């Protein structure tokens, strides 16, 4: 379901249920955010978030700085909300009782490097309070689940990024928690490994676990779940299925606002290159492996050059597709992308500051 306030500006959204695959709101929520705000000095990390998660997989999407990791840390009890409260199965997320119910796969990539992967997972199991035999048994089981049984005797310092991700996931699964918080779990994993992980996540969801999986990339999450929460500037901008969110966005043109700080533009002192900047259209980022455009048929063609010329005085619209070239110093304007675009990355720019706008509200 798509929340009625998805496109609003308050960000105070309630998701009565985030239960994909037909689960209903009658199931007790596993994770509850109640009007939670978190500040880092003058910067707001999470802004008035109200959210309930029930068993199933929920994707958490947002650009860098959108507040995904802060939300994860709040749920894992690693950060304290300044306003509101976070509860896991009725326990304050900061309590030991709540941690017993949470498996957290953090973003940080440091371990007890002198240990082997197996030793590390066993150590984490012992720190959960299991007897030696039980800890070993659980460690072996989770290592098997993440596909590290035969590779876990090497020291952690020699592990690749993918192997480290697997060990992180193994320690999160050890105590069989009802809630799994997975911060960028697919980052650094090869395609085969991704498929294995996705299969594992789906299997866990089938076993009535609640998974909150964060990612920069919506495509990644599309393979995993159709339920996502989109974060922007600390708010939950949208909650629901990807299709529903896209449908709502169809009616609201998405544009990129370009603010040029001329001092930052490379080559601005070179008169031959003065005023040249590039805006790479998100379309370039939307292409999957092999150049296949992911869901391209859903999108109308874009006309970046022509549109840019109309809004940027002096801009040369003859640049290649997806590129806007030339603008006078101090130019500012909008590049209409010609339709709704739902990309977690938005666009990438060189020499200019770009911000995506949605319904008049700037998003980071």
């Amino acid at each position, binding site marked *: 379901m798509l929340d009625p306030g998805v496109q609003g500006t308050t960000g105070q959204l309630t998701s009565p249920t985030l239960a994909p695959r037909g689960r209903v709101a009658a199931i007790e929520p596993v994770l509850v955010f109640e009007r939670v705000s978190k500040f880092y000095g003058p910067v707001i990390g999470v802004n008035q978030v109200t959210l309930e998660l029930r068993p199933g997989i929920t994707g958490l999407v947002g650009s860098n700085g959108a507040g995904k990791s802060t939300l994860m840390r709040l749920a894992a009890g690693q950060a*304290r909300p300044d306003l509101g409260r976070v509860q896991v199965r009725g326990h304050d997320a900061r309590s030991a009782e709540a941690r017993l119910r949470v498996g957290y796969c953090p973003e940080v990539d*440091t371990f007890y490097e002198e240990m082997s992967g197996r030793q590390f997972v066993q150590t984490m199991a012992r720190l*959960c309070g299991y007897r030696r035999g039980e800890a070993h048994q659980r460690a072996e089981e989770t290592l098997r689940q993440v596909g590290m049984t035969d590779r876990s005797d090497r020291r952690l310092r020699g592990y690749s990024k993918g192997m480290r991700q697997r060990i992180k996931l193994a320690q999160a699964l050890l*105590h069989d928690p009802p809630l799994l918080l997975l911060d960028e779990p697919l980052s650094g994993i090869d395609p085969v490994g991704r498929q294995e992980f996705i299969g594992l996540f789906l299997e866990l969801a089938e076993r009535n676990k609640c998974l909150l999986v964060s990612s920069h990339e919506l495509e990644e999450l599309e393979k995993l779940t159709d339920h996502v929460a989109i974060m922007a500037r600390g708010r939950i901008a949208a909650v629901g299925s990807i299709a529903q969110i896209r449908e709502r966005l169809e009616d609201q043109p998405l544009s990129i606002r370009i603010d040029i700080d001329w001092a930052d533009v490379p080559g601005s002192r070179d008169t031959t290159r003065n005023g040249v900047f590039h805006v790479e259209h998100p379309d370039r980022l939307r292409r999957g492996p092999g150049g296949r455009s992911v869901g391209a048929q859903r999108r109308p063609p874009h006309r970046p050059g022509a549109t840019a010329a109309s809004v940027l005085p002096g801009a040369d619209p003859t640049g290649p597709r997806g590129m806007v070239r030339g603008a006078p110093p101090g130019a500012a304007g909008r590049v209409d992308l010609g339709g709704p675009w739902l990309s977690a990355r938005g666009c990438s720019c060189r020499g200019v500051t770009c911000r995506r706008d949605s319904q008049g509200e700037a998003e980071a």
Partner: protein
Amino acid sequence: MTESAGAMDKRRERSSLRAWLFLVWLSWQRQARARQMVWIALALLAFATVVVALNTAGGRWTMAYWKFFGRQGPTHQEWLAQSQTVTPLLPPAGKALASAYYAAHSAILKESDFLVFTRGFVFLLFFSFLLPLWSLSFATEAMGGERESQSLIWLLTRPLSRPAIYLAKFVAMLPWCLALNVGGFALLCSVAGRPGPIAFRLFWPAVLWASLTFGALFYLFGAFFRRPAIVAIVYSFFLEVIMGNMPGDLKRFSVGFYARCMMFEAAEQHGLQPENPVIYDPVSGGTALWVLLLSTVLLLAVGMFLFRRIEFEVSD
């Protein structure tokens, strides 16, 4: 019903106390992995042992080598030797008196080794320099090392309360800290000749309690400061020294003051006392012990309270 039964089973198969004890064991093991500060501490122990041994071999733990009259005149030994040359010239009664005086002077010089060793080494080098440095080498690493390497997250995500984690790591750190401090003091005393065993017998309680308090203080630094070793060094060599030697009540905020008070009382029969007791105004040994003990408990309680509330950023 089934869910609650499952929860009961889970509670039975895991135990918070077992987890806490394992954390103590794990932390104790990880402390054994000598880091930079510990290597520095061990190198200092080796250096100090050599210095003490050389002084002992040279018979320098005595006032016989001290020059008197403004440190410009002859040494006590020289003066005694010169004085004895004129004794035969004295009348019989004077000879007896002089002999008694020289014997007493020689005895004082011989017995002075304890005071020289205490003031010249135990107070000046050990308590002012080695003890704080050795304490901070383990104490700041205990939590600070995990914090700086960002591996603390793995403990904070376990189903243990944060105060329990804080306490466990402190308990794990203590054996190393106390072993280095008390063991190091024992080693140094053992190579100090005659005054060494006396000093160890009298002063080990002060070393133990001061180590405990310094340990709790520097452990607190390790948990909350980004460069805990530097903060602890600044505290030890500036604030402790300045505060500990200030007239008035300010010195009562220094750990060293109470340790010294315990030592003054323990070695009272050997004539050890502050250079100016009126200004120094020492407290009794019992009071000093209680202050150190309560300070340790208070520092731990403050640390546990703050640790429960603090958030460790990813960049920490």
